[in-house]
């Protein structure tokens, strides 16, 4: 397994947010984490990369327990994270944003550099010197993915990449994610949008109120319309 999460519990102050989350991601797989607003998708990702301080449980990445490591060490080990709010450095140019994400090459992981990313996201190549703050939402979303890829991750956590984007940009996003998959990057993508998830994912988990309530292939999910209707707003 590329990534195994077991018994993950997280807290914000006294509030218990995640309850015994368990996830598995295979080598080169694209796995969707589906759930409504506030179900705990982002907190799951933030907990995996160590951005939630108060958490317990095990996160095994490439056979190594990373749950005690600080965020930067987890990420440097090859576990990339693309946050929901994009969090572009608005004062920095496109190229500088990419520079922040750059990490040394990692044997065995897909390798990325600026030129390769500008081929994947041609829009970015046309605005290399533009400050992140003067880009559209879709462009920022591409930049934030490209920025994470600069770290040559072998697995990426993608938090709601389609949120707030126009249908045309969403299409580009689907192509980009499939291209990443083709390069050999394993991906966990959180989504509210089942149609989008269906286009890219091999398997799916459904999270509701901080608990995983379904896990299986997309076909298995389609065979259970009751689960789908109960936990996802369509």
């Amino acid at each position, binding site marked *: 397994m590329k990534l195994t999460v077991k018994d993950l519990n997280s807290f914000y102050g006294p509030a218990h947010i995640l309850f015994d989350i368990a996830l598995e991601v295979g080598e080169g797989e694209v796995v969707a984490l589906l759930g409504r607003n506030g179900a705990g998708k982002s907190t799951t990702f933030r907990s995996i*990369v160590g*951005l939630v301080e108060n958490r317990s449980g095990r996160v095994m990445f490439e056979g190594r327990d990373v749950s005690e490591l600080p*965020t*930067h060490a987890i990420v*440097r080990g090859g576990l990339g994270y693309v*946050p929901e709010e994009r969090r572009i*450095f*608005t*004062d920095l140019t496109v190229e500088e944003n990419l520079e922040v994400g750059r990490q040394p090459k990692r044997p065995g992981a897909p390798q990325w550099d600026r030129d390769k990313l500008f081929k994947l996201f041609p829009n970015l190549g046309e605005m290399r010197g533009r400050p992140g703050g003067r880009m559209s939402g879709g462009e920022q979303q591409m930049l934030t993915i490209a920025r994470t890829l600069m*770290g040559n991750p072998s697995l990426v956590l993608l938090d709601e990449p389609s949120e707030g984007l126009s249908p045309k940009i969403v299409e580009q996003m689907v192509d980009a994610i499939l291209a990443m998959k083709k390069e050999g990057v394993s991906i966990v993508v959180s989504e509210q949008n089942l149609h989008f998830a269906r286009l890219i994912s091999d398997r799916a988990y459904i999270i509701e109120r901080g608990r995983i309530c379904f896990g299986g292939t997309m076909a298995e999910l389609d065979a259970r319309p009751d689960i789908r209707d109960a936990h996802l707003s369509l």
Partner: protein
Amino acid sequence: MAFYIVQFLTGLASAASLFLVASGLSIIFGVTRIVNFAHGAFYMLGAYVAFTLTERFSGAFGFWGGIVVAALIVAVIGVLVEMVLLRRIYHSPELFQLLATFGLTLMVEDLVVLIWGPDDLVGRRAPGFKGAIDFFGQNIPSYDLFLIVLGPVVLGVLWLLFQRTRWGVLVRAATQDRDMVAALGVNQKWLFTSVFALGVFLAALGGALQIPRDAVNHAMDLRVIVEVFVVVVIGGLGSIIGAFVAAVLVSELNAFGILIFPKISIILVFLVMAVVLIVRPWGLFGKPEAPARRTPGLTVNPWRPLTTNERLAALAALVVAAALPLVAGNYLLTVGSEIAIFVIFAVSLHFLMSVGGLASFGHAAYFGLGAYGVALLAKMAGLPMIACLLLGPLLGLMGAAVFGFFAVQLSGVYFAMLTLAFAQIVWSIAFQWVSVTGGDNGILGVWPEKWAASPSHFYWLSLGIAALAVVILRIIVFSPFGFALRATRDSPLRSEAVGIDGKRIQWTAFVIAGTVAGLAGALFAYLKGSVFPDNMGISLSVDALVMVLLGGVETVSGAVVGAIVYKALNIWLVSQTDWSKLVLGAFVVLIVVAFPKGIVGTLEALLYRRRKSSSSVSPLLTSRVESAE
């Protein structure tokens, strides 16, 4: 005309050091979000170490090498401080960070006296820049010209560093979003440490470069830090260009201000700062800050008025305190009066800090204004004591009304810096305006009238006023005004949305706190029989902060306990050691790191835990993730 040009050039030369120190402070703040109050101390250390090195090693190489090596040595000290102290408090509320670095400053002040002695040290002239250049009959020291060139050069080097290197890109990214930088695999710990090292290096270099111009002494840290705060408030915290422009502006105002108001040139700088604050509260080149992080007082158990039993207990404690003259001698009664006065002072600051969420680092200004108010009324107008006690604090009220108006436009660290700068301005007026205030000699012979003159009578008077002040401030806390003030503290936006004029409420709180502090100062003048500029000095402001902290910031009246314990300890300590600042500074750092809840806060937490002990804490809560943020 030539004279004015020379004056202008002198201003530019002074701006160089100021820019170095201010840019260092700005860089550190940008990434770590800590306003390093110890920055002046590093500046001073740079000067002292450079003095020793340049005396020890001769020749041009010894001089220039000594300057650079001194800055490097101090930078290493800065790294140690960052790793040992600051890393523990990056998560703490701003107030604690400010206090810890302030404690450090106090320690350094005593340490340099311990190592280099109390006297001014006059350093070597710079080899190659010993002479002066004749400019239409006016002399310009060539070293000044060197400094004038150096400022823009350093600005250029910093610009290249931040624009053209990976390190610079990472620092700029971290300035905007530290967590995201970590989430991209950058180890923030070392980024923070390297940024701190650079900032301290710049401060120390600024200090080291001053030795051919100025004598090295152990008060230069506070002088520079106040100017630097003014510079970053004008230029905008976090902006290097802003630091440069504002350093030039402030230095020129000083250079020409001295021609216009020879005695109180600092007023001109103050006026410019006031204008900038009104027009652009975040400084000329700064950006509006996101709302400050959590201030103390947000996660407390809801405050409640005392129960009947607790009231009776408080009353009993007061009766016991009032019985002191039956058993104690005159010395103890004088100490008792002083403690009562400091209870008044501490609760006034506590009101502003805990209830208002505004941590003032210059509260002594209003204490001192009250004291001077009494002294001036008693000595010049010859008013009776009661009238003086009633009218004297009005000077504190007026000071608080003027400065508070500007201060409440800001919040968080800006508020702290501004209040400190105001207090220093008041202090320097008292110090420089000799014809009215007597300057360093103060005003002597302010004695109470007969009815209050005996130690026991004065003690009862102080105790009575202290009890009254505590009760009144508590009533205000639980009045509609208090609710509005606390609402503004907890959420400025939400309170505004329900129709509360936050700034006005905070301004009123500032004036109340200043007036009560003035009352304490008025009593203090009668207790000591004299007034000195030190009655409004920085160390008194820090004393008050420590009292509040020791009692517990998140309590309603913890400051009462904090003031009693601290003042008693302090009086004892001063009688025991000459190095009280060293001990006090270490004490402050210790409280912040090890004991941030204070005495009353800790007791409350213990009681709370005992009450809840049946429901055990989940073991899941224990695992903690390490990060440098």
